[in-house]
């Protein structure tokens, strides 16, 4: 896999506020990379710098191996970008908008554009200013998918949309997934956990981790240990065990480096005989809550 998007020691300050702090992120080719993090983590700023809409304070970003600050029209022909806060040409009708953009893209696929308009049930003769929020996002997405770009960048595309519209948008995006690399940012993990292949967690301008979704979900487990004897109060636990909760004979924790044999060996080493151990896979949302709590505790 080659890298389609890359940030190198990227920092961005708005006056004294540090938004990005030496961010190093790589989005591999043909991945669906979910960039997640709380509001204000720096997701939109990262994407805007990647798209050359903002200048970095330090560091560089690359798309297709080109410095983002020198992205040419030819590069933008390969990128489909949709953002929740994008200013659209409000006066255009949906059909005029699509027709207007067509000559900018040599790869514009008229049949695909028609298909997208049908799929999203977009009213062709309605002005963009008269569209609902969901419809605007659909129009933006249709105009960004009609030329089959090899890179699709979606900045919080599902914010404020009802579940039905969100599913339609996801469906439209996933139709391109086998050919394109997709970078999608969201503060809502449940939106993207069903289809992201890679995940990056951004918090306070730093990338806390970035890895394949399968590896992430494999290494996090919620574990409940029922002890035969009460737990000693001064018992020190491994740092990889997060969100520990304990009652007299029950210990619950999230193992952030779960490996069946190693984790079991550690439990037996610490507590000797145990009555029962139950291991549960975790949804992405639970993983991030555990991480956020651990970070808060550490802070």
């Amino acid at each position, binding site marked *: 896999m080659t890298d389609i998007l890359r940030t190198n020691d990227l920092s961005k300050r708005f006056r004294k506020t540090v938004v990005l702090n030496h961010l190093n992120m790589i989005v591999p080719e043909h991945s669906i990379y979910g960039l997640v993090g709380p509001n204000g983590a720096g997701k939109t700023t990262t994407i*805007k710098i990647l*798209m*050359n*809409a*903002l*200048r970095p304070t330090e560091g560089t970003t690359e798309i297709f191996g080109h410095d983002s600050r020198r992205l040419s*029209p*030819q*590069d*933008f*022909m390969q*990128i489909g*970008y949709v*953002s929740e*806060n*994008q*200013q*659209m*040409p409000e*006066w255009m009708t949906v059909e005029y908008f699509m027709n*207007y*953009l067509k*000559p*900018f*893209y040599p790869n514009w696929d008229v049949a695909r554009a028609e298909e997208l308009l049908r799929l999203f049930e977009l009213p062709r003769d309605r002005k963009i200013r008269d569209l609902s929020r969901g419809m605007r996002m659909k129009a*933006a997405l249709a105009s960004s998918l009609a030329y089959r770009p090899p890179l699709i960048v979606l900045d919080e595309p599902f914010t404020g949309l009802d579940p039905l519209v969100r599913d339609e948008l996801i469906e439209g995006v996933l139709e391109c997934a086998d050919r394109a690399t997709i970078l999608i940012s969201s503060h809502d993990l449940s939106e993207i956990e069903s289809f992201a292949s890679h995940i990056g967690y951004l918090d306070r301008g730093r990338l806390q981790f970035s890895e394949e979704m399968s590896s992430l979900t494999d290494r996090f487990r919620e574990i409940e240990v029922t002890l035969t004897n009460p737990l000693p109060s001064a018992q020190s636990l491994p740092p990889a065990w997060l969100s520990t909760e304990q009652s007299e004979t029950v210990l619950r924790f999230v193992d952030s480096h779960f490996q069946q044999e190693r984790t079991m060996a550690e439990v037996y080493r610490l507590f000797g005989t145990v009555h029962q151990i139950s291991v549960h896979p975790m949804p992405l949302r639970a993983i991030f809550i555990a991480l956020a709590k651990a970070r808060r505790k550490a802070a």
Partner: protein
Amino acid sequence: MRQALHIFKKDVRHFRFEIAIAISVVVAFTIIEMRHALSVADPVTIRTGASTLVLFLLPLVWWTLIARVVHDEALAGNRQFWITRPYSWRSLLGAKVLFIFAFINLPMLVADMVILRAYGFSLGAELPGLLWSQVLLTIVYLLPIIALAAVTTGFVQLSFAILMPFVIVLIFAMFQPGVVLLRPVFFLGRFAGGIPVGYEWVKSYFAFIVITACASVILFWQYSRRGTTVARCLAAAGGILVVLGFTLISWNAAFKIQNWLSKEQVDLSSARVAPDSINEGLSRFFRQGEDSVGAEIPLQIMGLPPNMRVRVEKLSVDFQSPDGSVWKTDGYSLRNVGDADQRLIVRTGLSGGSYKKVKDGSLEVRGSLYLTLFGHRQTTGVPFGDRPVVVPRIGVCSARESVYRRGYFLICSSAFRSPAAVVTYHFIPSPADTAGQDWSSVQRQMNSYSPFPADLGLSPVSQDFKLSSNRVPADHGLVERMEPVAHIRLDFDITNLRPGNAYIPPPTNSH
């Protein structure tokens, strides 16, 4: 090019109503100017309210159009949809330039041509003026607004950016009331009386150069890189430079440039300024106001080449007392005492305190007179009638009897600028009139000595006329023109001037 045309077509579709309004105002302007051209029967009614209104509306509709079209693909900000689309900056800039040319410059060019034809001008002869007036229109009315629109996100920001310099200039003008900066800011139009006179065009052209350079760099920078912060700093620096230019370019510097541009060699080896020996007795000092003493010194300009007329542009005088104290004064007024302009009385002043110090001694007066010499007298006859006559390097002139039969008038229309010349109008009486008197009038208005074929202004034609109320039948008119041939400085030194001897005490009240 294809992309530029594509964007241009989109802009035309989007702004069709704004375009229609802008062109309607240009059409109204053309009709008003043409009606004025066709109704020269009585030139006293020069401008109507509608004409003035249209001259104010034109810049407003242009600025609105520019703001709308530039902000349609705003360069400042990071949320515009187009910045992540494959726009070529050259195509985008080209589309905007094409739009502005097509709906502002071209209609004005056509309007100017139609108006000139209505006045009877030959378009071929006026081509340099036509083109140069478009250059000035672009530099002063359009470029600054295009540049400001390129560094702002919308109409509110742009309005603020436009108003800011006005406020700054107004504050500045409170402390520097004589500064001519207000003229270019307040539309620089003929209607606003904004034509720089004499050598002031040097300052105006300095401003034009700064505006052109800054706006070009801003547009290049913004369209190619969208570096709004740098572009805004550059816009502010350009504004400051224009203000500084108007303040710091001295009259002397402007004079030197004008002098350098004078190509004609005039023998001035014997030219000098000396006390007027004939009117020497007219030298006097007199009290003016509470603490000021006026001085009138008759001077004579001698040794000028024959057949030349002279105009004093400026005078600076130093009074020096025997103890070495010097009082400088630039304030003066001139009173011609005869022999065309070559004898004059310089009237200036001293403070009461300074006068007391020197009144019993002798004064040395050193000064410099800055003069423009006019020569190459040309005379063109203008018969009475409806057909205008082409007068070389002035324009078209016509002579008529007033519609109210109260007398006669000679009217000359000049394209794009007033002639940099002394123009004299003569009414030649009928041979049957035994009185046989020639009534002449010298045009006294100050014109610009700019070497360019157009002054800044929206109306392409400026007019000057002489109305005669003499009821003696006139046979025809004559227009006499003398053009500036040299701009010179003559220094003079008057020694042993005794203020005490020439003092005229104020009249005493008698009961």
